[in-house]
């Protein structure tokens, strides 16, 4: 208690603008309140101090100098104890009645905020405007600001950007609303809907788009209430939000078409009506939206009224300046329920015409089940007893069954496929922004945007793609004058292309920039201790180094790479997706990054191998080649273990049977089969007995218990119904490296 008081006494606030000082003080007041011996007179001083501080902070003091003076007096009163004259006076004053200011003293007329003090988060009330005395003042200030803003920010480029970005955000709202429809308490979804309105409102304020500002502000308020659980998210709110989204879209399109003036006119009827509706909002209010398609037609379909009547009332509603639905309700022709039902249907028909939204989990289940079906089918058809059936009709029917299940599998997979176009298109903006920022001239070209990819993958590849494009703009493409002096066109080109190859999608990112400098990367890697000076690496291995964590060839961190995420993240991302990444580059000519990803996460293209009595699946994407070595290309190196020489390259031999503790058919590598895999900077040979075949398998996760297993990434059911484990090459190699490390103590040549 004493120490807190002393601290409070020593607390220096430099002036009413010293918010940090005030902040310290407020925290001390909070502390003080918790201490023993916190007395009633103290509480009153604290209460008044908080109130005054709040006014100082929010710049809502009717007389700032007086408030500041008063705060200092109260503070010294608190820390010095009761003897202080001012403090006595303060107590008397405060006791007068709930902080009602004393009359007399040379203090201006002020109205004290009625709500409890300083309770943060209690903002929704204030937003209604009239309740808060500070608001009128502030609004005046912001309208003054508006006048001067008007000229400063009327930049067509900025407006264009605003329109684009707002549209993007509005598009996300619908999805989140859907989430809210299933779970109205999903606070993350409410937030995700709230935020775009909030941001759009903010920018519209700057750009002086009053109507957009107004509209988004109202919706924001509504959602803020939902956010703080003051109102429940129900159909009516969802309706309002969706309608607002529609109106905003229309307004943005108008803006885009250069109808700048239209926006600034006082509220158009649509907006006025909508705002009225939000204002009168209650959960029972009729849901009357802005028709996109004819409500009348839907009502006629429902048999509520005939089409002639619809026309008649439509005419009437036009004269009245109302919506058809309103007129119908007013005239008693249709009930509110009927109209709102029609309106909801109207909204849904738009969606169902083009597509149906399905929960992705359902889709995943479907794909999973179809996968099972395919497996079950082959189990039946490969059953020895069934195989013995030579009857022709049966043979024909089973071929037919095969065809159907294959088609079913294809369709169910394709349901999760979306074109990569949208992801690519986001890069246009990125490249434009980045190149502008860095003063570079960059063209972005795209190829194969229609290539389809698993929905789940789309989100996953976005981030690595962004990093690679950033990397190309930041490190690849040179400044125009550098390019000209290098004899190139002043503007650089980045080409991103996608193409489907086998079970993979291949994404290429090429730039015609300065390319990767082998010597520079090498020097950097040695400096950073990534490699040692004696390490012999070919160009390709050196390029790979840029994916090493914490590696950057640029000394100065630019705004772009300043985001602190490097190529190592890209690599991790790609690996998580069971993909591969390759770099080629010619110094001065450009770089080429290639991402090879599976089309879907649910199925992999695998090589089925036999090790002893077990079969395993090695993802084909991990394999470089398979071979049977000659006897003389196998030897053991002192301190390095067993090696196999493949085309003059020494590769460590990893015995899969040792790893999986199987008794193999062949112990000698020249009898068995070697699978060559790349991991990190090196290549390895995995020893198996034989390759059984190549097959697409549906991946089954092993479940929580086995998640930590090294060397195995999942399981799959093979054609004969037996389970095979999917080999995690990375895990096996790192286990191998660890054990050779421990065993010989020396692994590397240095």
């Amino acid at each position, binding site marked *: 208690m004493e120490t807190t008081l002393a601290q409070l006494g020593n607390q220096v606030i430099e002036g009413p*603008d010293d*918010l*940090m000082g*005030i*902040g*310290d003080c*407020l*925290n001390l007041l*909070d502390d003080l309140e918790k201490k023993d011996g916190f007395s009633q007179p103290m509480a009153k001083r604290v209460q008044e101090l908080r109130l005054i*501080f*709040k006014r100082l*902070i*929010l710049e809502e003091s009717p007389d700032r100098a007086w408030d500041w003076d008063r705060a200092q007096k109260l503070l010294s009163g608190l820390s010095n104890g009761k003897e202080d004259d001012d403090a006595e006076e303060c107590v008397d004053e405060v006791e007068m009645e709930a902080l009602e200011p004393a009359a007399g003293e040379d203090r201006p007329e002020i109205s004290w905020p009625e709500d409890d003090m*300083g309770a*943060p*988060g*209690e*903002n929704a009330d*204030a*937003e209604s405007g009239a309740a808060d005395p*500070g*608001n009128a003042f*502030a*609004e005046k200030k*912001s309208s003054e*600001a*508006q006048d*001067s*803003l008007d000229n*400063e*920010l009327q*930049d067509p480029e*900025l407006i264009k*950007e*605003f329109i684009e*970005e*707002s549209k993007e*955000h509005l598009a996300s709202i619908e999805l989140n609303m859907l989430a809210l429809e299933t779970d109205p308490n999903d606070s993350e979804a409410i*937030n*995700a809907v709230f*935020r775009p309105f*909030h*941001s*759009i*409102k*903010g*920018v519209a*304020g*700057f*750009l002086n788009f009053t109507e957009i500002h107004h509209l988004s*502000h109202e919706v*924001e*308020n509504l959602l803020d209430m939902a956010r703080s659980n003051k109102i429940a998210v129900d159909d009516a709110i969802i309706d309002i939000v969706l309608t607002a989204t529609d109106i905003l879209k229309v307004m943005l399109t108008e803006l885009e078409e250069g109808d700048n003036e239209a926006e600034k006119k006082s509220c158009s009827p649509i907006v006025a009506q909508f705002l009225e509706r939000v204002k009168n909002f209650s959960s029972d209010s009729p849901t009357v939206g802005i028709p996109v398609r004819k409500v009348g037609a839907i009502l006629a379909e429902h048999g509520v009224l005939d089409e002639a009547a619809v026309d008649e009332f439509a005419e009437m509603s036009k004269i009245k300046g109302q919506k058809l639905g309103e007129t119908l309700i007013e005239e008693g022709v249709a009930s509110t329920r009927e109209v709102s039902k029609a309106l909801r249907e109207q909204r849904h028909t738009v969606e169902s015409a083009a597509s149906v939204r399905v929960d992705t989990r359902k889709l995943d289940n479907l794909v999973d089940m179809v996968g099972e079906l395919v497996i079950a089918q082959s189990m039946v058809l490969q059953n020895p007893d069934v195989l013995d059936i030579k009857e022709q009709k049966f043979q024909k029917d089973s071929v037919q069954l095969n065809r159907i299940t294959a088609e079913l599998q294809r369709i169910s997979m394709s349901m999760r496929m979306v074109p990569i176009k949208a992801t690519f298109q986001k890069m246009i903006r990125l490249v434009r*922004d980045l190149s502008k920022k860095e003063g570079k001239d960059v063209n972005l070209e795209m190829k194969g945007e229609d290539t389809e990819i698993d929905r789940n993958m789309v989100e996953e590849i976005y981030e690595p793609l962004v990093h690679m494009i950033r990397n190309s703009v930041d490190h690849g493409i040179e400044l125009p004058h550098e390019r000209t002096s290098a004899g190139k066109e002043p503007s650089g080109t980045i080409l991103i292309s996608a193409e489907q190859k086998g079970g993979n999608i291949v994404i290429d990112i090429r730039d015609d920039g300065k390319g990767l400098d082998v010597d520079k990367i090498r020097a950097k890697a040695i400096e950073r201790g990534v490699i040692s000076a004696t390490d012999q690496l070919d160009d390709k291995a050196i390029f790979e180094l840029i994916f090493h964590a914490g590696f950057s060839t640029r000394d100065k*961190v630019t*705004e772009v790479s*300043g*985001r*602190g*995420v490097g190529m190592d993240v890209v690599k991790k991302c790609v690996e998580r997706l069971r993909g591969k990444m390759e770099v080629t580059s010619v110094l001065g000519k450009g770089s080429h990054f290639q991402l090879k990803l599976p089309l879907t996460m649910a199925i992999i293209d695998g090589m089925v191998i036999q090790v002893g009595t077990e079969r395993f699946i090695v993802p084909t994407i991990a394999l470089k080649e398979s071979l049977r070595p000659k006897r003389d290309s196998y030897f053991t190196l002192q301190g390095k273990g067993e090696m196999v020489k493949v085309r003059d390259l020494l590769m460590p031999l990893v015995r899969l049977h040792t790893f999986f503790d199987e008794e193999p058919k062949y112990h000698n590598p020249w009898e068995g089969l070697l699978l060559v895999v790349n991991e990190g900077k090196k290549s390895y040979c995995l020893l198996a007995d034989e390759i059984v075949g190549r097959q697409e398998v549906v991946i089954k996760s092993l479940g929580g218990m086995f998640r930590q297993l090294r060397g195995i990434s999942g399981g799959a059911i093979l054609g004969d119904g037996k389970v095979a484990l999917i080999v995690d090459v990375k895990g096996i190699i790192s286990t191998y490296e660890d054990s050779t490390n421990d065993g010989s103590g020396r692994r590397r040549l240095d």
Partner: protein
Amino acid sequence: MAYKDMTVLIVDDFLTMRRIVRKILRDLQFENIIEAEDGSAAVEVLSTNKIDLIVSDWNMPKMTGLELLKYVRSQESTKDLPFLMVTAEAQKENIVEAVKAKVSNYIVKPFTAAILEEKLGKIVPK
């Protein structure tokens, strides 16, 4: 330090908003401006760059302006960094919370270069 020698970090999830703030800062002769799209991106920037001033929005996904402020104040290297919080009129009341977390000052959207300059005058000695 003159504005032109300072490095400012703008934090906002809305690109257009960052553009606007950037433009206004440029009007005030700021030359070194870095942007981050939310609090966590800002943390990354702070770990690799020397920043002299943060102008951050409050309402952002992943990591809000308030969380960023608390982080900044908790780090030895940035605990005294001038931090200007951008807020909306409707959310202004929350500022008391930011003041307790030691925000340097705040500014209400929309604002002009003149208003920003006035606020900066209070928190960064020119």
